[in-house]
C-alpha cells in the first residue's frame, strides 16, 4: 500500500476540546477482567474439590466414582452450554436469545421421541447406546443447522420477530413431543419421560468420553476463527466492512452451536434458561471480548452447577434436582432482561 503522510504532521485535529487532564475519564476498575477470571477459576476449583472430596466415607471408591461421573457430566454441560450461548448471542447480536429459548433442544427432544415412536422401544434396547447417540446427534444437528440457517441468513429480522419465532418453534416441537408421548404405551412413555427432564445424577457413563471428544473437537474448530468472533459481535455490516467472511463464519458458528447443544442435550436433557444466566453474568463481569467472556461463562456455569448440586445435596439435604432451581433463576434473569429493555 502507498505510504501515506502518517500521523498528526500537519493534520490538525477536530475540536481538541478540553486539552488536558481528560485521561481520568478512562475507567479503571479495581479488579481487571483477567483478575476476575482468575478469581472465578479459583472458586470453581474450590467448589469442585469440595464436591468431590467432602465427607468421603472410609469405603470411598464407589461414592467418589459416582461423584466423579456427575461432575464430568456437569463439566461438559458447563462448557457446551456456556460456549454455545455466548456464540449464539454473538451471531444473532442480542443478549436475551439462547439456543434453549430458540427451541434448539426442543427439536432434539422431538427427534428422540419420534425415533422411539417410529421404531419402537426395542431400538432403545437393541441399538448400542453409542450408535443411537451418534445417529441422533447427526440428525438433530443437521436439522437445527438447516432450520436456523434458513431463519437467520440473508434477512434482517426484528428481534421481537425472532423471539416470537423461537418461542413458537419451541412450543411446536414441545407439543409434537408431548403428543407423540401420549401415543406411546406406558412402559415406553416412562423411558421417554425420563429424557424430557434434565438430570445430572443419571448421566450415562458410556457417553461421557464421546461427548468430551465431540465438545473438544467443536472448540478446536473455533481456533482459526477466534479473532473473527469479537468483530462478529459488532453486527453483520460492520463485520463485513472489517473483512470478516460473514456467511462462512456464521455458518461455522451455527454448526458448532448445534453440535454443542446436541451433545449437552443428549447427555443430560434440555436446559432452557441456564445458558442465559451464565452468559449474562459473564458479560457483566468481564465484558464482551470472547477471550474473556467464553472462559468466564464456562467457569460461572461450572460454579453454578457443581456449587448448586453441592448445596442441595450436602447443605440442604434436598432431593430436588438442581436444574429446577437453575432454570428458575435463569427464568428470572430472562424476564428482568426483557423488562430492562437490554435486548440489543
Amino acid at each position, binding site marked *: *500500500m*502507498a505510504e*501515506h*503522510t*502518517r*500521523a*498528526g504532521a*500537519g*493534520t*490538525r*485535529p*477536530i*475540536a*481538541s*476540546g*478540553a486539552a488536558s487532564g*481528560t*485521561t481520568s*475519564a*478512562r*475507567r479503571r476498575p479495581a479488579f481487571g477482567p483477567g483478575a476476575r477470571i482468575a478469581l472465578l477459576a479459583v472458586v470453581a476449583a474450590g467448589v469442585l474439590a469440595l464436591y468431590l472430596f467432602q465427607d468421603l466415607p472410609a469405603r470411598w471408591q464407589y461414592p467418589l466414582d459416582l461423584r466423579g461421573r456427575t461432575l464430568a457430566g456437569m463439566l461438559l454441560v458447563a462448557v457446551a452450554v456456556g460456549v454455545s450461548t455466548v456464540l449464539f448471542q454473538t451471531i444473532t*447480536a*442480542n*443478549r436475551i436469545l439462547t439456543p434453549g429459548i430458540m427451541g434448539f433442544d426442543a427439536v432434539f427432544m422431538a427427534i428422540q421421541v419420534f425415533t422411539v415412536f417410529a421404531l419402537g422401544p426395542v431400538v432403545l434396547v437393541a441399538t448400542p447406546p453409542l450408535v443411537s447417540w451418534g445417529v441422533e446427534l447427526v440428525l438433530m444437528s443437521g436439522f437445527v443447522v438447516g432450520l436456523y440457517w434458513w431463519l437467520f441468513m440473508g434477512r434482517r429480522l426484528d428481534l421481537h420477530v425472532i423471539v416470537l419465532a423461537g418461542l413458537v418453534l419451541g412450543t411446536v416441537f414441545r407439543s409434537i413431543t408431548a403428543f407423540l408421548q401420549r401415543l406411546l404405551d406406558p412402559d415406553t412413555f416412562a423411558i421417554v419421560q425420563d429424557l424430557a427432564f434434565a438430570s445430572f445424577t443419571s448421566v450415562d457413563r458410556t457417553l461421557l468420553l464421546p461427548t468430551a471428544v465431540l465438545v473438544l473437537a467443536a472448540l478446536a474448530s473455533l481456533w482459526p476463527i477466534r*479473532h473473527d468472533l*469479537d*468483530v462478529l*459481535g*459488532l*453486527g453483520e*455490516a*460492520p463485520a*463485513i*466492512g*472489517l*473483512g*470478516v*467472511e*460473514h456467511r462462512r463464519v456464521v455458518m461455522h458458528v451455527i454448526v458448532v452451536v448445534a453440535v454443542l447443544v446436541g451433545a449437552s442435550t443428549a447427555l443430560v436433557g434440555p436446559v432452557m434458561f441456564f445458558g442465559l444466566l451464565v452468559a449474562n453474568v459473564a458479560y457483566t463481569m468481564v*465484558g*464482551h471480548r470472547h477471550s474473556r467472556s467464553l472462559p468466564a461463562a464456562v467457569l460461572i456455569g461450572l460454579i453454578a452447577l457443581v456449587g448448586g448440586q453441592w448445596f442441595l445435596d450436602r447443605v440442604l439435604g434436598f432431593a430436588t434436582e438442581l436444574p429446577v432451581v437453575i432454570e428458575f433463576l435463569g427464568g428470572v434473569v430472562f424476564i428482568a432482561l426483557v423488562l430492562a429493555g437490554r435486548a*440489543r
Partner: protein
Amino acid sequence: MIQTDSLTKRHGDIVAVDDVTIELGDGLTAIIGPNGAGKSTLLCSIGRLIRADAGRVVVGGLDVATTRSRDLARRLAVLRQENHLPIRLSVEELVGFGRFPHGGNGRSVHDRARIENALDLLGLEPVRGRFLDELSGGQRQRAFVAMALAQDTDYLLLDEPLNNLDPRHAVELMRLLTRLVTQRDLRIVVVLHDLNVAARYADEVVAMREGRVVAQGSVEQVITVEQLSDLFETPARVAEVEGRRIVLWE
C-alpha cells in the same frame, strides 16, 4: 478509482439501484439526490455490504465480489447511515476494531499510533474512555468515522456522516475529509444531504434519482437551477455568495 458496471439491486419490486455504470475519480465525490433515490444502496453495494443482483464493482483494481473480504478491508472502509451496536463498547475499543483488517489486536505500537491519530483527528480525546451509549449522537457518529479512519485505507465511503453533527463539527469533519484527500491521497465518496456542503467541498458531484445516476460532474455542472429543480422536483435557486454556490428553494 471506483467503477461500477451495470450495477443493479432490487428490493422486492423496488429497483433501488438501476443499471448504474459510473466511474468515480480521485478526490472527494459527493452523492446527492432525494430520499429513496438509491444513494445508500449504491454506496453499500460498492462497499460490498450489500450483494448486488447484477453488475460489477471494481475498487482500486479489485472486484469486490471476488476479492477476499479481508484484503478489501485494507483498501476500503465503509460507514453506513445508521450504526447501532449490539454490545457495549468504549470509544477507544470501537476505534481499535479499525485495526482488525491489518491483523492487529490494536496493541502494537503501530496500531496504537493509528488509533491515537484517529481519536485525535475526530476530537474524541475527551471522551475516549466513555461507552458509546453514553455519548451524544454527534459524538457517536464521530467515533464511527474514527474507526473507519483507523482502518487506514485508500478509499473511504461515508453515508450521510454529517447526521447529528452541529455546524461546527460538520464543518470540521468536511475540512478533515478534504485534508485527508490532499495529504493522505485518500479517495472519499460521501452521501450528502446538505447541498451547500456538497457545493462547498466536493471535487465531483453525482446526482441520483429513482435508482439511476442522472448527472455527474463538477459543482458548476451539477449544482445548477435546472439540474436541482429536476432532481428534487422543487423549483430551486442557486446564488453565488463570496464565490460559492448556495442553494435556495422557492
